[in-house]
């Protein structure tokens, strides 16, 4: 008989990179959303399309209401981004292997140039965090000067989503390798976590018990993984707090 402590989680189940989000201190200020857009060359879509569910945000902040006036409360702001599932529902349905699991980084990749635009992945994502390039959204000159050269600029007809700033991961790994060392925890972080004025987002190695993200997760205790019951093995943990 196998005792619980003997069960070792495979790398796929623990994941490699992960994030914890403290909803109790998230103020909903949208700094992460803006930072993400600036870092990842995300297009803006204009008033009409944005209002029709075509905005390209890779991270959005959800809030609901509880109760009725005067006892009304705003539910804790919930930043919703790609959960980088260990067992993602988006991956198996893509007919072209455009969204695949990275064995090296344990992330859900979106290979833009392979995408043919069936949108099955977005349909099948229970978190609804994928954004599709519905049109050829224009960045009039010289706005394109701020494009991040490390991130592919997407055009019409391809799907995109949060990458956990994989370009930063690669950059840090490359730097560490050139210096002959391992990547140090806290050496880099995602754009959203870096911007967050409340430090509500912490990013790092979840397979390293000494990393800040693991420590924060332990300190908080009862973290929630969204829609865990679907077996998606998400790598983002939420703390409701309060």
């Amino acid at each position, binding site marked *: 008989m196998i005792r619980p402590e003997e069960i070792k989680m495979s790398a796929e189940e623990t994941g490699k990179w992960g994030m914890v989000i403290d909803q109790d201190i998230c103020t909903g200020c949208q700094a992460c959303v803006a930072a993400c857009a600036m870092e990842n060359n995300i297009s803006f879509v204009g008033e009409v399309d944005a209002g029709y569910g075509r905005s390209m945000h890779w991270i959005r902040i959800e809030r609901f209401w509880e109760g009725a006036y005067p006892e009304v409360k705003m539910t804790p702001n919930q930043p919703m981004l790609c959960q980088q599932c260990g067992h993602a529902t988006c991956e198996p349905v893509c007919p072209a292997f455009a969204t695949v699991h990275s064995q090296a980084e344990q992330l859900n990749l979106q290979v833009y140039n392979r995408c043919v635009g069936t949108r099955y992945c977005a349909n099948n994502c229970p978190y609804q965090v994928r954004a599709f390039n519905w049109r050829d959204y224009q960045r009039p000159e010289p706005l394109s000067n701020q494009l991040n*050269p490390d991130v592919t600029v997407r055009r019409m007809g391809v799907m995109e989503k949060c990458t956990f700033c994989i370009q930063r991961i690669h950059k840090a790994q490359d730097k560490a390798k050139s210096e002959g060392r391992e990547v140090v925890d806290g050496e880099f972080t995602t754009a959203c976590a870096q911007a967050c004025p409340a430090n509500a987002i912490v990013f790092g190695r979840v397979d390293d018990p000494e990393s800040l993200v693991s420590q924060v997760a332990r300190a908080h205790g009862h973290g929630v993984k969204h829609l865990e019951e679907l077996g998606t093995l998400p790598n983002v943990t939420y703390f409701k707090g309060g």
Partner: protein
Amino acid sequence: MSNKFSRRDFLKLAGVGAATTAILTGCGPASRYVKREPYMLMPEYTYNGQSTYYATTCRECAAGCGLIVRTSQGRAIKTEGNANNPLNLGKTCARGQATLQGLYNPDRVTDPAKAGASITWDAATQAVVDALKNHKPDEIAFLMGTTSDHLFDLVTDLAAATGINAPVRFGALSMFESRATLSTAAENLFGQRGLPFFDVGGAQVVFSFGANFLETWLSPVSYTRGFAGLREAQTKMRGTFVQFESRMSATGGKADEWMPIRPGTEAMVVLAIGKLVAEKRGGTMPHAFIEVDPANVAAKSGIKLETLEQLAEKFASSAGALAIPGGAALGQSNGLTVAEAVLALNALVDNFGKPGGVYFSALAPNQTEYQRAASVQEMQGFIQKMAEGKFKVLFIHGVNPVFELPASLGFKEALSGVGQVISFATFPDETAQEADYVLPDHHSLESWGYQRVVTGSAQPVLSGSQPVVSPFYNTRATADVLIAAAQLAGGKFAQALPFTDEVEFLQSKVAPLMNSADGFFSAADINTFMAYFQQYGGWWKTLDGRAVPVAANLLNHSLSGAEAEFAGEGEFFFVPFVSPTLAEAGANKPWLQELPDPTTTVMWNTWVEINPETAHELGLEDDDVVKIISEAGELEVPVYRYPAIRPDTIAMPFGQGHTAYSRYADNRGVNPADLLGQYFNEAGDLAFAGMKVKIEKTGKKQPLSRMESIMGVYGVGLGEEH
């Protein structure tokens, strides 16, 4: 321009232009179609393809957060917070992130212009020379932004030496923050000028009376960090936060308890809580709280007496209780009383100078006393002078008063009373359109300078700016223009500004800090010091520079618990608030427009928040356009049925409604400042929340773009409930 700082040898790179050819790949333009220009002179510290990072200061608002800007081959790619800067410790808000969309905005002013026609910089400088020389000193006026920066110092020096009018600073944010009220309250109670600082992070219980400190108030990044500290569960008990306001702001949304008190009753609620707290703590009842009758307050404000008592109990029994005044509570006829009452409440629990208490904000390094921006009443006087023709020349920099000031003050009309208006606007904004000359300043990321951190940091901070990219257009630093003009004008002007360029002026200003022992760094010579200053993004002291308010007789100060007075006939209290994402000057940045408002998730537009009950009574649905009529004006705006607003109150965000401010802002939404009349509180700040307005249906519809699902969040359109 100094030769020592030759970063302007950068080539302007054509960059990763979005070529249309590569559409078939679904990804960016193939490199083949990008014009690749190598550096003519490659800076020694850079390699192609490798990023260079520069420290500078964010100038999207007056807070003065430090930035690190990533640049690649002469293009600015990304802004991040400067982790060294004690104010923001590496963090930014959304507006700081979107700075680049201002820098690379397609609608900037590209060349100096006279009446819309491009002119050379020589002609432009000559115009400034003529303006300075051909007028009497008291006929020349400067109007500048809220920021206390090097340019303000330069103009102040110029004014002091030549007798022209001292520069006046103003901004919509300082108007909505009621800075004058805060500092006047401090002066009245503590006998000392200064901007109070509230240490939210160290507190256990925070009562905020309208302060939107998580949005745009004073120093949002710093206060947000404070809020995180309040809630941080690891180190101490999770702090409690209670917000008193008639309309739930994004700040109020984070409160544990939200108290929708009737507008105008803030002062009496504070006093009533004070009285109950004093009773619980025992001892003699302070003078300020004697007169107020909590039961009466409960009836008037709409809070139950038991609730008031519970709140008072919470406040009295906590080890770290803190009360903060702000927002609409100060923008009423008795705003000053509210501020004083809140400070008195803090005095009651004796939190001055303690962690989680009230301080005076640290004075910035090269500053001897707090200099606040002009209140709207002072602006009224300024406008009066303009209209009367007392100013022959008006220089405007860093502010857009035609948009930011309530139209009823008549700034736009008064401009015609000024002989010559010279604007230094970066964007062709409403004020620049009215100006005779537009001499575009660089964007802040192309500029030198420093900026004082007025509040938010325990340490005195002087945030430093340096150009992170070479100027994109034919713009010129305003300081350089003024220095050049002063030199050309000769005489006392040349003596007032004896510099060759802006950098030399900067050096002269920061030189006194060079050898300070308590500095974050020091240097023996100015070049080394300036190198550090640029590298670290400013200079700051290592010690806590906050002064502790002393208020021996504060509790004997008598305060009136009368209700605020409201102007106008309508049945609704009108609460304008600053859009948390756009603020006063964000509307020209497309990604800020596309950020959902934290409370309503509306993008790209203005809305009016109405309680669903009220809307039902008025027969209004979401997206119905209503006409809002105040004494001062009227405007049409679509309805957002907002569940967290008093039924007798309506609220509108400030930030949209531009007529000239780039293609992303023009003719988008409306400006609630158009509804505001000339009413002030006792400190001379605008009583922006002191109006009552009427609502009329128009029968029109205008769908608002929301991030949220109206079905999923409000259940609208899902069908009858089971």
